């Protein structure tokens, strides 16, 4: 008890490894951390179904998730989402049915950001919400470019 232990990295610092939160400083990460939900899924467990009303986005803290569905895009593609990536982002912005099914392909830890909490953040901590929104917009624009290039 008389030894001073090495200062550990606070749990919310690990959030910085996600692209979506990489522009947030430690104080902002701490604030955001109080809004996140941590969930554990076993290999094969369904995270959400296609057509289900989504309430927010999921970030993969460990493990992997496969996205597949009957829609025009997902019928031919099965996308694998790995550690540090995220999925279900449209549900963060609007109340629409999920466009595909998400299933854990190995034992997985997910972090969820709920739409209502994000909207609340827009009101109270506009700076944090703006930084997240900017990163999300960059990600969506990148995906749009890839889709257009794929069609060409």
């Amino acid at each position: 008890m008389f030894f001073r232990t090495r200062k550990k990295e606070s749990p919310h610092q690990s959030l910085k490894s996600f692209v979506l939160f990489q522009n947030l400083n430690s104080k902002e990460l701490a604030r955001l951390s109080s809004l996140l939900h941590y969930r554990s899924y076993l290999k094969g467990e369904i995270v959400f179904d296609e057509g289900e009303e989504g309430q927010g986005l999921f970030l993969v803290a460990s493990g992997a998730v496969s996205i597949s569905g009957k829609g025009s895009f997902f019928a031919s593609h099965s996308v694998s989402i790995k550690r540090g990536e995220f999925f279900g982002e449209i549900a963060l912005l609007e109340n629409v049915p999920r466009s595909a099914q998400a299933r854990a392909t190995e034992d997985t830890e997910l972090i969820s950001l709920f739409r209502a909490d994000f909207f609340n953040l827009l009101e109270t901590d506009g700076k944090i919400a703006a930084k997240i929104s900017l990163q999300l917009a960059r990600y969506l624009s990148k995906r749009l470019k890839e889709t257009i290039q794929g069609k060409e």
Partner: protein
Amino acid sequence: MSASKSPGPFIWLCILLVTGILLYFAKSILWLVMPMMIAVVQYYILIPVLKQFVLMGLSFRQAAASVMGLLFLVIVVALILIVPYVSDYSNSWQSSIGRYGDGGISFLDKSLLNLESHFVYLKKIHFHQKISGALINFTAHFAEQHAGEIFMTIAKWLPSLLLVPYLTYFLLIDGSKFKRFLVQAVPNAFFEKTLYLFHRLNEQLRRYFQGMLMLTVLDGITLAIGLSLLGFDHVLLLSVLTAVFAWIPYLGSLLGCLLVVLVAATDFPTQPWMAYGVFVLFIFVRILDEFIYMPLTLGKSLRMHPVVSVVMLLVGGAIGGVSGLFLVMPLLGMVMVVGEVLGQILSDQRLLARHRYAMELRSNAANEGLS
């Protein structure tokens, strides 16, 4: 999932039953339920102020502390203003209560005699004699039978009210943590629906309590203007009391109206039109409530069928007395939202199948390597 899917009769029956059972249990721990209820009301009223402080650059914890400090300051200033007024009038209040009681009985007496003179049937059954006798008997023995009981109830309640600021502060700083703690216990298959349930519950309660406060202010102002136009004294006190009574739907307006009629009958014994003026004013405020104030303040939060409201009020009164009348509507609103969403979850075969599958996976993982 369709959020708008309305619950069936079975779910509604469960909602009404659960509300009744909760009221029954709440009655035995009212010393805790009432401070919690007041703390929840304060929490929803103070949340917009807290958001403003956060927007001004304070941290969440600093903002919560500032809001509570501000509330404390408001209470202290209100007490400084009210205490001298109360102590000045404390002696005259006791006699005033008796005077207004007598005034009310005299008004009723005259009205009953008037009725008897118009309807011979009432005279035959000694209507005036029976009603007046019962009322005089009740008022004569009321003080000796209930004064001690009322005093003991107030003495029992005062310490528990000290819990209110403590509970409000922790709701402000840890409300979201508590929500996350509860959601943690929910199986993965129901996670998103549960989040949605909490969101709806929170929104419903926020709209209801903030709306009720706005409605009380609007009703209070309208009644104050109306009563001062009619020429009443103590307009502020009367309008605040009657506006608070209006928290009890339907029945509250009636009680408030009766209170002011008592005052009118006593203060203006030779002007019966004052009492009728009060009736007209209350009907006017009720119409304003229904068509303008309620849509403006409460919107669609906790708006339910009038028959359901009245039946539940009677049930609330029968189970929990006066406190039951105040508690039943917010409690019914909460149970209604939980019931609706639970009904949707439990009738969603796909979610139940997903849950069973997840349980099987967990069971297999736990049994791995045992045999």
